[in-house]
């Protein structure tokens, strides 16, 4: 359960960061998302656009890092397994 919790912590933390970051970025330059990114989210709303890209991009970084972090935190050492 702790393992899953660490993965969820990393994933949700990254997604929250990504959404906040992109909400600011989309207001600086909306073309960064409409021209600089492929048209996955077909919306005219900058807020929804940033919500979609913030979730997708940050999630793709947060999930693998979260899994490796959970492994580093919770995986058993060989000596820990052999000890009673």
């Amino acid at each position, binding site marked *: 359960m*702790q393992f899953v*919790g*660490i993965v969820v*912590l*990393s994933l949700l*933390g*990254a997604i*929250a*960061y990504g959404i*906040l*970051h992109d909400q600011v*970025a989309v207001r*600086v*330059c909306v*073309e*960064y998302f409409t*021209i*600089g990114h492929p048209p996955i989210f077909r919306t005219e709303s900058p807020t929804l656009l940033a919500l979609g890209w913030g979730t997708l991009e940050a999630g793709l*970084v947060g999930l693998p*890092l979260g899994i*490796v*972090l959970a492994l*580093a*935190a*919770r995986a*058993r*050492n060989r*000596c*820990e397994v052999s000890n009673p």
Partner: protein
Amino acid sequence: MRSLKSLILPVGILLGVTGVSGLLAGIAGFVLASRGSLVLWEPMASAVPKSRHVRFLADLWAHSASYFVGGMGGLFLIGRTWLSRNERIVAQDGAAPGAGRYATLAGELSDFRRRVSVKAVAVGVIVVGSSVVVGLGIVFVWAFVRARLGRPLSAAEVRANPSFLVFSYVLVFLSLLLGGFLAGRIAKHDFLLNGALVGVVSVVVGILTPGPTGSWLDIPMAALGAVLARSRRTLDEIQIDGA
């Protein structure tokens, strides 16, 4: 083992540091682009309205910094988490708490200085710079020959030429690979660290000077070169042992 609760603060700090880095990089990108030190490359330069180039570059830098700091910071946090588990095992075995190798910041800095080979990083950076200069020299010769043949190209035409773009990317990639490789060969230890430092210096130099380097991608490219040096060294050692 580390609990979920013990990781909430480190993850929060990492996100905070990433946010500050993104903000500072965005401001730096905006200022440099406003001054003309930073320009948008093709094909994006034609696709984005000219009036939006500065803001686009500010966003690009903020995003790049967030990815880099978040990614590297995440790897650092993973390493620290793993090492802190080993420290706890040492402490449980009777050593004083915090007596581990990475117990203090001063200890870590001292360890960092010992692991970095200044000579290797310097040689790597010089090789990267020299390779890029030689490569750009070839482009200048090509432009000169075209001018002599009565088909001159302006600087803007050269930059917009797809062949030049591909050549630039390949040139920078190979230069960084070579610089990182030589840094690894000279250092003979901590290959990834010394290679990555070649990339870090290359990014800083690229930002401060007009040229094709300066992307944060320089760092993994140079690190890859150093890792290749480690693989090569391992193969050499196997051959020596077998002889």
